[in-house]
């Protein structure tokens, strides 16, 4: 896939190395989003087990 990068007012196609960096960044972002979703799901599972909402749990913790 061709990516475009901008440096100040100049827009050009990314080189192969730059494209690889962009794709690595996208993969890293996807992994981060998945990790955060898993973390939230785990937290929700605990809350469900306790029968509490997130706000109630926050209130308990002060």
């Amino acid at each position: 896939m061709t990516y475009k990068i901008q440096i100040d007012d100049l827009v050009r196609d990314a080189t192969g190395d730059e494209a690889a960096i962009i794709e690595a960044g996208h993969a890293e972002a996807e992994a981060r989003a998945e990790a955060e979703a898993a973390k939230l799901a785990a937290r929700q599972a605990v809350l469900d087990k306790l029968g509490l909402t997130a706000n109630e749990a926050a209130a308990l913790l002060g």
Partner: protein
Amino acid sequence: MAIQTFTAAQVLTAAQMNALQANDYNQTVSTKTASYTLVAADKGTRVVMNSASATTITVNTSLFSAGDTLILQNISTGVCTVTAGTATVSSAGPLAIPQNGSGILYFTSAGVSIYYPSAVTTTSSALTLISATTVGTTVSSVAVSSAFSATYDNYKVVVIGGIMSDNTNLKLQLGATTTGYYAFVARGTVAGAADFTGDNNASSFARIGAGKTDGYYADINIGDPFATKQTKVESTYIPTNTGSSMGKVTGFINNTTSYTAFTIIPDGGTMTGGAIYVYGYAKS
């Protein structure tokens, strides 16, 4: 000498001629030491305010005609303000004349005048626009070079407008640094559910802003990017989706590199349009 009305058969004296000519080469001046209301005889002359207290020059209608011109001047410390009485006074600049300031009052009709200030009090701004970079079409990153210098210690970067191809966060990298980004992110949903996360020796500040298909936004403060100190960053990110978390980012880069440039990078997809504004905070 104020303007004269000569009548038929009147003798024009040498003294009158010299006096009228003198106004062309050495304008008639009337000095006022208190607030003053212009009169018809002021046409074509220079009204000089000389008061340590604030004064006004009031402009009334039916005294002047289209094309009439006066010069208003202030030679003392009290600011003089050109004030509309029964005539209108328009201006593209301030109506206040500071000490050693002046301006031209020009009438377009008997009751309508325009004031053209030729000297005004300058005010220094706390924020100075350093650069405005228009974002191109479907770009995967935007680098802004020459953003930071010794002129300022602290900077504000506003990333706004345009569209994104995806709902995604915006990342910030300083210079060519791809490691050592540390940040705490406090965020929550509109339902009030709080959540905390962070960047722990990450390759960028990962949640410096956010955007979607109707625009993007980041409001970033950057401290000491040019100094050989750790760069400090504080930002607000607001994904405008009712279910998304929004929050504040506070962080630093764990090195003492001096930076002149930064790059804004969408987490995924591309940016189109909008702009990146860089401002410097005045030191004094």
